[in-house]
């Protein structure tokens, strides 16, 4: 069954975002449940046992938006959703900065949970962003986390 397309907002930006502004947007329409994911820059790279002073995110303008649109569309065909907002920051970020917001609203809570989780999992493996960690004068391009491929398995139909 083809589902209604929800309200969709996708933004790639340098600026920080205000979660309560985004929730206000999702709150509109006939919504019973809102699930949000907020990603936060951590101050420690566990894999390399390294303190992170800052990181820079680069992306592939045009392709990033297109890939996120595909993921959001797919989520809206799997679950009945009323709204989806994806905001991803690029540029220089510091530990504890907000980096990504995915907000999903639906009449029913499990649709909102699954839609939000699905979008985050696919964003992690498909959206063309790359992080470089900066520590004093050293740069370290973060390597892909194989766990993120594993996370996709739960969405196999």
């Amino acid at each position, binding site marked *: 069954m083809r589902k209604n397309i929800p309200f969709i907002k996708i933004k790639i930006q340098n600026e920080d975002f205000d979660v309560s502004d985004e929730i206000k947007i999702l709150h509109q329409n006939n919504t019973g449940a809102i699930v949000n994911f907020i990603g936060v820059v951590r101050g420690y790279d566990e894999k390399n046992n390294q303190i992170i002073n800052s990181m820079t995110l*680069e*992306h592939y303008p045009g392709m990033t938006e297109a890939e996120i649109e595909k993921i959001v569309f797919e989520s809206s065909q799997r679950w009945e959703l009323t709204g989806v907002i994806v905001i991803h920051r690029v540029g220089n970020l510091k530990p504890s900065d907000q980096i990504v917001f995915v907000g999903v609203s639906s009449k029913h809570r499990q649709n909102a949970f699954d839609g939000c989780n699905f979008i985050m999992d696919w964003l992690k493996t498909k959206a063309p962003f790359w992080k470089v960690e900066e520590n004093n004068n050293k740069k370290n*391009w*973060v390597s892909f986390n194989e766990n993120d491929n594993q996370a996709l398995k739960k969405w196999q139909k």
Partner: protein
Amino acid sequence: MIIKYFSWIKEHVGKSEEQIELPDHINNVNELINYLNEIDKKYTLIFEKKELIKIAVNKTYSSFDTNISNNDEIAFFPPVTGG
């Protein structure tokens, strides 16, 4: 043809983008990579482990045997690390 590079690949190439005139006999991504390797040794280093390279043709995920033409935009980048 525009070729874009991201992340550590961009740093190895020394630029984020370059424009080349695609020779007529080059029809897919694999052939483009072989051609680049002939031009400059720096590409050999990048493409020696093909399994670490992702490809986009006109901003869509593609593979080594995807057909390309001189009007296309090709991008080479490592697996993504956003979110």
